[in-house]
């Protein structure tokens, strides 16, 4: 079976003295309708992986293949229409939305990306294969023809009032802005949605809700979701599979629930032990050993 997204032997090196090997041989795959959580501490290369997948960073080695098409790094020219089927939701909704354009216009960008690919139909109930025009897509999840062409429709899908389309980003809270960013990404009818720490700038009380919303909307439309976060307690709720990165490599991967309940790699164990539990018992999370260097052997399940 070929997955929707196949990343093989990915290496990314940032120039400098000495050069930084941000990603050092990463293989991962995301299937259609599958939710993959990517976790690890800051500097482990998880954001670099995400940015490479959508062509924002040039890999030093390895391949990123999306639905049979190799992903080429973004240059000065507009990216190929087929690659707009990958959409990204960034960490900071204060920076990722244009402050002086109305919400409706920004979601309209996403809609236009979908239209430019061949109609607002997008992939249907069955995930599109190859051509991206989504044959017979007006049946299935959205039902009515052309509904997805309206920004207001997308706003309603992410739980906002349709009249928000006439307003500007500063009129919304962080959680609402992130919903808008999700609406914009989904309006482009992606087959692969990438969330690069999409919930870490939000209040704790809205994190789980926004994460679950992203999962449901992506899965309902048959898209794959690569969800990057350092917050394990939320990721394990929404992810089917979990990938743990450490120092540019994958150290553990497997079904989310299995890893959460029974982590095998010492790094994953220390990561889980450090998550503070809001149970009111005053349990201190376990601090990592000073300058701990965990083995880089992989535990793949």
């Amino acid at each position, binding site marked *: 079976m070929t997955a929707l997204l196949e990343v093989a032997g990915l290496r990314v090196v940032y120039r400098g003295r000495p050069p930084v090997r941000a990603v050092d041989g990463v293989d991962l795959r995301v299937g259609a309708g599958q939710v993959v959580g990517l976790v690890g501490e800051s500097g482990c290369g998880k954001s670099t992986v995400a940015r490479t997948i959508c062509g924002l960073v040039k890999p030093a080695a390895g391949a990123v293949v999306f639905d049979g098409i190799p992903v080429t790094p973004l240059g000065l020219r507009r990216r190929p229409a087929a690659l707009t089927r990958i959409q990204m939701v960034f960490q900071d909704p204060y920076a990722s939305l244009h402050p002086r354009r109305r919400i409706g216009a920004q979601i309209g960008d996403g809609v236009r990306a979908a239209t430019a690919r061949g109609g607002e139909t997008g992939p249907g109930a069955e995930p599109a294969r190859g051509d991206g025009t989504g044959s017979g897509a007006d049946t299935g999840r959205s039902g009515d023809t052309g509904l997805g062409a309206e920004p207001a429709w997308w706003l309603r899908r992410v739980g906002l009032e349709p009249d928000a389309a006439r307003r500007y980003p500063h009129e919304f809270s962080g959680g609402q802005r992130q919903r808008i960013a999700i609406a914009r990404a989904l309006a482009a009818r992606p087959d692969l949605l990438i969330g690069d720490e999409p919930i870490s700038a939000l209040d704790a009380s809205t994190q789980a809700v926004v994460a*679950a919303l992203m999962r449901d909307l992506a899965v309902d439309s048959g898209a794959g979701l690569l969800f990057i976060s350092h917050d394990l307690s939320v990721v*394990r709720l929404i992810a089917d599979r979990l990938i743990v990165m450490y120092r540019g490599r994958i150290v553990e991967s497997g079904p989310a629930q299995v890893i959460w309940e029974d982590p095998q790699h010492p790094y994953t164990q220390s*990561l889980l032990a450090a998550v*503070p539990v809001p149970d009111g018992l005053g349990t201190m999370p376990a601090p990592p050993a*000073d300058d701990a260097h965990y083995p880089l052997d992989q535990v793949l399940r």
Partner: protein
Amino acid sequence: MSALEITALTLRIHGAEILRGVDLSLAAGRIQGLAGESGSGKTMTGLAVLGLLPAGSQVTGSISYGEQELLALPPRRRNDLRGAEIAMVFQDPSTSLHPMLSVGAQLTDHLRHHLKLDRAASRARAAELLGRVRIPDPAAALHRYPHQFSGGQRQRIAIAIALACSPKVLIADEPTTALDVTVQAGVLHLLRDLATEMGLAVLLITHDLGVMSAVADRVAVMRHGEVVENGDRLQVFTSPAHPYTASLLASLPGAAGGVRTLDDVRALRELS
């Protein structure tokens, strides 16, 4: 006995009501948590104690530190207290430390200002402080610059700077929010130890109830500029008195009554 007492504190900035009567009490050796969503007034409460409010702020109420009423103090007296007896740790150590000054310079600056130590004495004290927050090789670290340290080490250095003049009160505003969970665990242990060993009264401002549950002795919850609940940690987390606290906990994975599965989260979304 309370080290710092905030009573009926209100704050208006250019006519906007930010705080509407905040009451808090900090005791020596105890960590008072202050939780709430962004915009609820947590940070402004902390800044009011330090007297670092933005221009155009109108404050009423009382903040008493020992015998002194902070809000009535002339600026000079307040400067004497700030950094010496009441200190603050900010959220992001990569912006709260000066990038172009060595750690030693930043650590000794206020030692020399407040305690009038000479060069050698202040350096010795600075090295001792770095050792206290477990920075490896403290003497050499004094000559290094913030970018040469990791995020967790930088926050430890920021804590060392705050502790330099042996303050009685420490305001920690989201001290671990910018850190990884693994690094966060270490900083939380440090805060807990410092409070216990130095008898420090800590006001821990954070929106992360997990952090709160780990180190705070008492937990206050703020909303719209008011403290809606303030109580013992276990009571607040297990039987919250205010419906807002209960709704906060309900949205958290791992809390008592919090979401456990994806379906719980979906149910939460239906409600909101």
